[in-house]
Structures are given as structure tokens and as C-alpha cells.
């Protein structure tokens, strides 16, 4: 051997791919050459690590999320293919080709057949059957509480594509599923729904519990059915509620027209009307009554949440779940839209969203804003608990108003006033005990600059309270 040993030969040596004579030469060389001994050591160490790499176990991944996305991608492609059926001209091309072939085979000077004779004796191939209707996909648009899909509580609920065969169940919460433009259903608490058929031609849902449905007008040939035990509810475009519990089925229609049928006949339920059916009595004998204003308000409140734009393929990528966490159950609004009781999760588009929560008096107050990026994890906003209502607030409120040092407050506001800013405010949360001592005073919202806000807070902190009822309250002071 002349010169040094190539590094890859040391790897061959390690792997036993070098014959005995050469091996001896290489080892002898390594004993006399420090550089090659070092290279050998490095190569051997690297080769040793191959076994470790080879046996690396599979890492954990978001299996459910991946499965949902895979299913989504595959079904989306399938739907797209179904939506664009190629014109069925294949049989025509085949017939033309056959004709040309016959003409070529029959000789160089073909003669035209008499007009009365058929050109081709064979029957034209039958036209291909109409393609099956495109499968629909539903996406969760809002959820609260425990929701199970196909028997599991999916971590990727908002990424899941709900298709034919999916079974959704709720515990104490509810879940809204959008499946088209202005079409969605909202599954109530302790309810189960099965998507028996979910395609462009027929939507058939089997409900055990309560479901509110808002569905865009169906085109000709499209059917929307809700199976509720022995009763079948069919609509062509409306908002309605079906509640089915064992032997009792109730169908209420907010607007539109709903046809309820069973073995005994059919009943039509119009705007703001409802019908109740029991298993003991035939449907045809049940009266259709008008909804009370409370019932109508409940129906209005239960309108399923649907995004204004419906493009399921794009929505999965471009929207994200926003989780609003509250200590208790509180009504929330996102961007001015009432969503019901939080804690809940709602699908939103990326961007900044304003969240408001209702206080104990039912007034919505800004709870904060949250930036949401398009990702499967979305964003989370925690809303602190509302201070417990205490008695004596009116008295303490008067004391606060009367005790504010107005000239000092005016000095705080001077720079703002000089700048021409008016209509500013500060909202504070304050706690006063029975002795009149201030427990805490927090500025929770203001549109003032921080320096001015601090100055105002100091003025408020210097208000002295006398003995009286302990109270904790929020006060908005317009300046």
C-alpha cells in the first residue's frame, strides 16, 4: 500500500468488506500513521452510530390530525373529479375509429352504402351511467363541551372532515357543523347525530336528541331529510329544530316549510309553528300550533354558526379555531356576533378578533382582542372571572363619584383636552371592604395614554370611603 488509506476503506474494514491481507496492511499503516489512526477512529465511531440510527423508534405524531387531513385531501380530489365529469364522447370516438378501420380493411375504393342500409350493424355502446353525486363534507364551526366524532374525542375536531357515516355526539355542550353555503346544523346537548347520507343529492341525518338546522334552499332533485325515530322531516330550505327523545318528537320551524311524515301521513309545519308527535298517536291527528315568543327567541338563538364563505378545501387551510376560555359559563360575542355560552371554540378566519363577554346584567363588555393565525392549533383567549356581585354597590358607587377630586382630575386631563381629545373614558374594577378600605383598584379598560391613565388612577385611589357594605364592582368613568 502506498500513501494513506482512503476514509471509506476504513468503513469497509469496519463492515468486514476487506480481505485479510489488505486488512493487515491497513492496520499496520494505522499503527505508524497518526492521521490515518484518527480518521479510522472517526469513521468507526460514525459507523457505530448507524445501528442506533437504524433502530430509532417512530416518533409520535398528531395521528388523528394527519388521518383527517389525508382523508380530506383524498376525498376533496375525488369530489373535484366528480364535479368535472368528462363529456362522454368516448363511444363516439370508438365508433368513428371502428368506421375508419372498416373502411381501410374493405379496400382502396370503398363504395358508399345505400342510404337505407345502416352503416354499422353493431349497436352503439350504451352511454355510461351518470356519476354518483359528489360527496359532501362538513366542518365543525363551533363547539363547546365534550364532542365525540366516531366514538373518540378528537384533538383535531376543527380539522376533521365529516362525511357519510360520521357519527357525532355531544355531552353537555353543543357542536355546529357547516356543510354548505348558509347551511349548517347545530347539535344540542346530550344528542347524537349520524350522517347517513351526505352528498350533493341527498342529505339524510338521523337524530337522537336535538338538532337545529339552517339549510339553504335546495335545488330540484336535492333532498334534505332528518330521521327522528318513526318520523321523517323533510325540507327544501328553512331553519328548524327537531328534538327526538324516545317516543316524543318535536319539530319547530322558524321560517320556511317543513314536511313531517310517518306511516300515518304527512303534516306541513310553516313559519313560527311546531308540531309534537308521540309514538302512541298518529301524526295526522296532531295539531300544528304557533310558537310562543320565547320559543321563537330560543330558535333564533340556536341558529347554527356558519361562516359567510364556504369553500371547505380552502377553509381547512385558511381558518383556525379560536378557543375562548372563561371561568364560568358566560355569553360571548366575537366581532359583534353572539356565539352563546363560553367556554367554546369557534372557527374564525385569520386576523385580529374582538371578543366581548356578557356581565351579570347581560351587558356585553369588551374582554380583549386576539390575533389568530391560520394553523390547526389556532388561538386561545382566557377571560378572567367576573367579580362576584356584592350588595351595597350603589352606596359605594355614590361615594366614589362624590369623593373624586375634580380639580386634580382636570389637571390629569389637561394635556388630553389641549390636544382636542374628548369622550375618553376609564373603566376600573374596585373593591372596598366594610371599613371603607380599598382592597384593590385596577384599571381594566381605557382609551387614555398610559401616563394620563396612571394619573387618573391615582386620583381614584385617593378617594376615601366610609364604613358601609363591602362591595366589589366595575365603574366606567367618562372623562
Amino acid at each position, binding site marked *: 500500500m502506498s500513501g494513506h488509506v482512503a476514509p471509506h476503506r476504513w468503513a469497509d474494514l469496519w463492515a468486514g468488506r476487506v480481505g485479510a491481507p489488505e486488512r493487515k496492511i491497513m492496520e499496520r499503516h494505522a499503527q505508524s500513521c497518526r492521521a490515518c489512526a484518527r480518521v479510522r477512529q472517526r469513521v468507526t465511531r*460514525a459507523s457505530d452510530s448507524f445501528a442506533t440510527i437504524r*433502530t430509532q423508534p417512530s416518533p409520535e405524531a398528531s395521528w388523528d390530525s394527519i388521518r383527517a387531513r389525508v382523508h380530506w385531501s383524498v376525498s376533496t380530489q375525488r369530489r373535484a373529479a366528480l364535479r368535472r365529469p368528462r363529456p362522454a364522447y368516448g363511444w363516439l370516438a370508438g365508433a368513428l375509429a371502428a368506421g375508419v378501420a372498416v373502411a381501410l380493411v374493405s379496400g382502396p375504393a370503398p363504395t358508399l352504402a345505400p342510404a337505407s342500409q345502416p352503416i354499422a350493424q353493431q349497436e352503439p355502446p350504451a352511454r355510461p351511467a351518470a356519476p354518483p353525486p359528489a360527496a359532501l363534507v362538513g366542518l365543525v364551526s363551533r363547539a363547546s363541551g365534550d364532542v365525540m366524532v366516531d366514538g373518540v374525542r378528537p384533538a383535531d375536531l376543527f380539522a376533521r372532515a365529516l362525511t357519510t357515516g360520521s357519527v357525532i355526539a355531544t355531552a353537555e355542550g353543543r357542536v355546529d357543523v357547516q356543510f354548505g353555503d348558509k347551511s349548517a346544523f347545530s347539535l344540542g346537548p346530550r344528542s347524537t347525530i349520524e350522517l347517513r347520507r351526505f352528498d350533493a343529492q341527498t342529505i339524510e341525518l338521523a337524530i337522537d336528541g336535538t338538532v337545529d338546522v339552517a339549510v339553504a334552499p335546495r335545488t330540484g332533485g336535492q333532498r334534505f331529510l332528518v330521521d327522528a325515530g318513526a318520523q321523517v322531516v323533510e325540507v327544501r330550505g328553512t331553519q328548524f329544530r327537531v328534538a327526538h327523545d324516545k317516543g316524543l318528537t318535536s319539530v319547530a320551524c322558524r321560517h320556511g316549510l317543513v314536511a313531517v311524515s310517518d306511516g300515518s301521513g304527512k303534516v306541513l309545519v310553516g313559519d313560527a309553528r311546531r308540531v309534537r308527535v308521540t309514538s302512541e298517536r298518529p301524526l295526522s291527528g296532531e295539531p300544528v300550533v304557533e310558537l310562543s315568543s320565547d320559543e321563537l327567541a330560543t330558535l333564533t338563538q340556536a341558529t347554527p354558526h356558519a361562516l359567510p364563505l364556504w369553500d371547505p378545501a380552502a377553509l381547512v387551510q385558511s381558518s383556525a379555531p379560536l378557543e375562548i376560555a372563561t371561568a364560568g359559563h358566560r355569553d360571548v360575542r366575537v366581532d359583534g356576533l353572539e356565539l352563546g355560552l363560553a367556554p367554546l371554540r369557534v372557527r374564525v378566519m385569520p386576523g385580529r378578533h374582538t371578543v366581548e363577554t356578557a356581565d351579570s346584567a347581560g351587558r356585553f363588555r369588551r374582554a380583549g382582542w386576539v390575533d389568530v393565525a391560520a394553523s390547526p392549533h389556532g388561538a386561545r383567549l382566557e377571560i378572567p372571572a367576573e367579580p362576584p356581585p356584592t350588595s351595597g354597590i350603589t352606596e359605594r358607587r355614590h361615594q366614589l363619584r362624590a369623593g373624586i377630586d375634580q380639580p386634580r382630575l382636570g389637571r390629569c386631563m389637561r394635556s388630553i383636552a389641549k390636544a382636542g381629545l374628548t369622550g375618553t373614558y376609564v373603566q376600573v374594577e374596585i373593591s372596598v371592604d366594610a371599613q371603607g378600605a380599598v382592597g384593590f383598584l385596577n384599571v381594566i379598560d381605557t382609551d387614555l395614554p398610559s401616563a394620563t391613565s396612571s394619573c387618573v388612577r391615582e386620583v381614584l385611589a385617593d378617594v376615601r370611603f366610609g364604613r358601609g357594605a363591602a362591595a366589589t364592582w366595575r365603574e366606567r368613568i367618562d372623562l
Partner: protein
Amino acid sequence: MVAHVMLGRVKRDTTGSLATLGPADEADLIARCKADDRAAHDEFYHRFRRQAAGNLYRVLGDRTDLDDLVQEVFVIAFRGLERFRGDARLSTWLYRICVNVALGKIRTRKRRPAAIGVADLDATSADPSLTERPETPDRTLERRQEQERVYKALELLAPKKRIVLYLHEIEGLDLKEIAYLVDSNPVTVRTRLFYARREFYRIIAGEDPPEKAAPDDGAEGAEP
């Protein structure tokens, strides 16, 4: 039918689910998947997900975008099942898809270099059967650094060379097996492997990698 006998190593999946899938079960599963049976798709995914993730993880050396890559593998698999002729085991066929997806990822990474998360490889979670007694922390660290060095050296190779070298040196596959996986012929693989090994071990040895005179991805010549 190389692929039928190859890749017993593929069954290294820690769940052992692959080992229970006989040829008849496999044929049945494929048929049901082709019939667009959603349950079959789920079963397919459940059986092979860990294998796919493991293959991608080991080839790439880090778990960045692993979820997306696993998704890509299964989407390709489901879309391609129609064309699957059964000339290889399903696991092998899927491994081939993994290799191609990993290759694509390596190429993308070459264009847009990103931090390599090789430290992400958890050396401590290696197959316990290989270590009879618990390792010392020093030894663990040393082994982890060594793996890191290997993946850094792999990063410096051209994508096709890297894949071939990985499959041969680390997975221990022979030329025919590699040729099937990378959709090439054994002679090309042999040439590519020769240059890849030379380059890789030079980097490992601390020498400068050879000049670009060596055939790169498109090398079709014979080994010198």
C-alpha cells in the same frame, strides 16, 4: 420480485402491526381500499402510519414537518393504490413512497437551508435490546453527538447520493433493493453509492469533500 423478499427490516415498526399482515390480508386490504371503503383506508393508515413516520424520521434526521410529510405519503399512497400492481409488499411500496417524499423534502431544504434539527434525534430512546445495561450520560451524549455528525455529513451530500448512502450504509439494503426504492437500476445505484461513500467518509474524517468532478445525481457511469 426483489421487493417481495426484501425489506424484512421494514417490519421494524415498534407496534409490530406489520408483522401480522399476511399476503391474503394485504390483498384484501388493498381491494377494500380500492373500493373506496373508508374503514379500509383507516385500517391502512393505522397499520402503516408508524412505519411511514419512522422511515421519514430516520431518513431526514429530524421531525420538522413530519406530520405534513406523513400526510403526503398517505395521500400519495391512497391516490396511487389504483396503480399498485402487487409486485411488491405493501410495506415496501409504501417505503418507496417515503423515500421519494423524503427526497423531495431534502431537495427543498437544499434550496431553502434551514436549521437541521439533528439534536432532535433522541438517542436515549434507541432500541433497548441493543443496550444491555443503562448508558452513562457521557456515553449518551457522545452517541448523540455522533449521530449529529452523521446527519450533518449527510446534509452536505447531493439528495440522490444521500438517499442511496442512507439506504445502504444505515439501513443496510443491497443494490437491488435500493434500485427498486429509488426507481433506478442497480448499476446506477452502485456508481452513485461509490461516490456518495467516498464523499461522506471524507466529510466524516474531517477532510474537505472532493471537488464536484465526481458525478452527482445524474451519474450513470460505472464505478472506477
